[in-house]
């Protein structure tokens, strides 16, 4: 009996990922399409610029990090693909401010 091979259409691999970043005090989300090879640090940098915030050290130290699926992204050198896989069309992040109190001189 002849075997009928079924042509399974390839799973649509979205080349780009829509990154969405929200920030509690902001009225608008940051949204941008990124290649899957983009490292998360790049998204963090653009998001900070969009929300007009920056990592800085004054009396205290201010650092902004991204949260994905409820977890802080520790290594921002990972790529979007490493984070969301090959098929996910979008990634939703939250930008969070971390303040580390300075020590008195």
């Amino acid at each position, binding site marked *: 009996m002849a075997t009928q091979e079924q042509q399974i259409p390839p799973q649509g691999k979205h080349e780009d990922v829509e990154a969405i970043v929200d920030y509690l*005090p902001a009225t608008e989300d940051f949204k941008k399409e990124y290649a899957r090879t983009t490292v998360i640090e790049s998204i963090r940098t653009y998001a900070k610029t969009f929300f007009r915030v920056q990592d800085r050290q004054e009396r205290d130290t201010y650092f902004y990090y991204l949260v994905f699926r409820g977890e802080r992204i520790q290594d921002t050198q990972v790529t979007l693909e490493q984070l969301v896989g090959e098929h996910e069309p979008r990634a939703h992040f939250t930008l*969070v401010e971390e*303040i580390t109190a300075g020590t008195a001189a």
Partner: protein
Amino acid sequence: MKACEQTRLALLPAGRCGCESGVFWLGERASTSSVAAVVKPIGSGVVESPWQWSVAPEVYAAVTAWAKPRGLTLLAAVHSHLSTRRPRMSPTDRSQGLKVPDALAVIVPTGGDELDTTRWGWFVYESDDYRTLEEKELAARVRLTARGCEYEEISKEGSR
């Protein structure tokens, strides 16, 4: 219940124990914003002590996860001081407060036990610093009288 009443009720338990406490006011930012929800951060990562109220980033993240799908934005961080005097922003309040243009910082004296909102401290962040918000300006910026304000307690694990 109105936002200020919800806020006082949320701050009072810590105030009666001699500790500062705080809540976030959330709503849609507009020329005159209405406070749609009073959110009290609770649990691990929230410090309520005699001289400090602070919220860990993980709790902020949980508040964001609750607020954003509802279309809500952080309008103000409200916290209590134990002193009965007219509130002033401490160096820590200035340093660790919300540094977003037009964001409000509100301080309730007497550990939250102050009914008269004109005796609360009202500050707005503008041009890289906080300044006192005058009474007329306050009415133009925030509508505090709307009833049906939601109250939510949120820990880093999410809302209760």
